[in-house]
């Protein structure tokens, strides 16, 4: 692997990335998914300015109204505008996914690099710990700890971070194990480079691809987990909207009979978002794969 030392070499070093981008673009579903997600993130960020109504504004005379010009997605059982609530729900759901995955990456990369690079006792202690943490039934463990800490947005992110990094560190450790005895690492060590620099400049760029793919797929599963918790009533608490808790009230027979769009629309948004992340993960896998 070439290392960019001068501006001239820079273009050479960047080429594999360009090729990966070309391959990613060629994957139609992944490319479309990317645009859908960018759109969703924009809507989520801009929700306070573009939402047609107030998310908490109740209008009991107009409850469970079907989609119309004023309420594109209809209204819920308290007469609140569903489109507005879906927009605000996107903020919560996407924030949980983005923040928890970023912090998971930080912890996972740190633990995985330490275990893989130093090996020996460090490795066996860290990986035993990972084994133990991975043994717990994830969903039940999350519910237990969120319940202990009281369910709210901040605690949910904290718990998702605490219990979501293990897979990544194990993945990265494996990658690093297969790289750390290669010539370019030996060469870096011979010229007296620090461990930190070897890991970050030389090993990680070559080992990170599967971790990035797994992080992309994890975004989807974080959204699923958060919405499942909120759907059960053990996650984000109303009146704050999350895609999951918008479906919670929809379990009543009245809503199922009279207003099936109330559970349909937020659930479809969850489905669409998870599918986009899965397609992008798939696209990234193909893009990074063929060397």
């Amino acid at each position, binding site marked *: 692997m070439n290392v960019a030392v001068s501006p001239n070499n820079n273009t050479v070093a960047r080429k594999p990335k360009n090729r990966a981008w070309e391959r990613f673009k060629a994957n139609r579903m992944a490319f479309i998914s990317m645009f859908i997600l960018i759109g969703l993130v924009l809507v989520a960020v801009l929700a306070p300015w573009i939402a047609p109504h107030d998310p908490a504004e109740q209008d009991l005379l107009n409850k469970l109204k079907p989609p119309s010009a004023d309420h594109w997605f209809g209204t819920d059982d308290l007469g609140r505008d569903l489109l507005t609530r879906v927009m605000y729900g996107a903020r919560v759901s996407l924030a949980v996914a983005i923040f928890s995955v970023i912090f998971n990456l930080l912890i996972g990369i740190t633990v995985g690099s330490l275990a893989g690079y130093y090996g020996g006792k460090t490795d066996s202690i860290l990986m035993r710990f990972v084994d133990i943490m991975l043994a717990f039934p994830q969903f039940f463990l999350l519910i237990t700890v969120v319940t202990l800490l009281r369910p709210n947005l901040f605690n949910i992110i904290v718990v998702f971070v605490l219990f979501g990094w293990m897979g990544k560190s194990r993945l990265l450790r494996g990658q690093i194990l297969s790289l750390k005895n290669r010539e370019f690492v030996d060469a870096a060590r011979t010229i007296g480079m620090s461990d930190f620099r070897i890991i970050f400049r030389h090993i990680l760029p070559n080992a990170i691809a599967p971790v990035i793919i797994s992080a992309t797929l994890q975004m989807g599963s974080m959204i699923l987990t958060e919405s*499942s918790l909120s759907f059960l009533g053990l996650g984000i608490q109303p009146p704050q909207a999350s895609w999951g808790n918008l479906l919670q009230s929809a379990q009543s027979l009245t809503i*199922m009979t009279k207003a099936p769009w109330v*559970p349909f629309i937020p659930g479809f948004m969850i489905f669409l978002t998870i*599918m986009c992340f899965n397609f992008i993960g798939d696209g990234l896998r193909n893009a990074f794969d063929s060397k």
Partner: protein
Amino acid sequence: MALYTLRRLLNAIPILIGITIISFAIIHMAPGSPLSQFTEDPTIKQVDKDNMIKAYGLDKPLYVQYWDWVSGLVRGDLGVSLLKNQPVADLILERLPNTLLLTVTSFLLSLLIAIPLGILCAVRAHSRLDQIVSGFTFVGISIPGFWLGLMLIILFAVKLGWLPSGGLQTVNADFSLIDRIKHLTLPVLTMAAGEVAIWIRYVRSSMLEVINQDYMRTAKAKGLPGNSILFRHGFRNALIPLATLFGLALPGFFAGAAILEQVYSIPGMGRLFIEGAFQRDYPVLFAIVTVGAFLTVLGSILADVAYAALDPRVNLSKQEVRG
């Protein structure tokens, strides 16, 4: 082989101890004590509070409490539910059959669909069929189970009225097989939708791996009939990695159906857990989490042993052993 199994079991011991330590640490992370709902009640006298603390052993040092808890676990004593005042082990055993009925049925149904489809997709990789199936697997792995469940209830129970919307049998009716099947249809289909997608992917990739092996080409060169090559030489080898995955699916039988049990009002383990979470019945939560973790370890031991037993190429003396 026996020696390998034994070594594998011994290796799991530190993991099991770790699991109990972490569970115990989480219990004590809880703000307030497990009895805070009683001790914070001003109408309860101080003497009674002290007695209660003593009765639950909360006055002893932490390591003694840990030891009492673990030795209880080993004897099958999972603690007592704070609200139902019943041993948690009894509650679990009472609910477990319902959960297993749902999880095992949908597991078998998914394999029944996924194995033939997965093989077909591997044999005709990148064909039209493969692309269509792969599209469906994307839908299957992305669709939230609780949403699919609600949609199926709205369609088949509310609108069409063909199937019941929940429960395991008609209220006040005697048990009948047809009634039970009607009640299980929607939950099993919902659960299988996601599982089929995952297993098709596993079967397909495992089979693709095998199809390109030298011995497959040899078999073809010998002039063996296509089906014989596919099943005697191909699928049997593709099953080896799949056997590992079956082992890893074990904890899912126990814990995998929580949300669907809630959606379809099935009185199983998952509902027991969710009710426990709502009522802050911590002993129930910790017992289920700990048992689930033990099952994961057991499943991975089974997976490794099955792998070693099925694949003669595995070198037992050198294989890395992990929990």
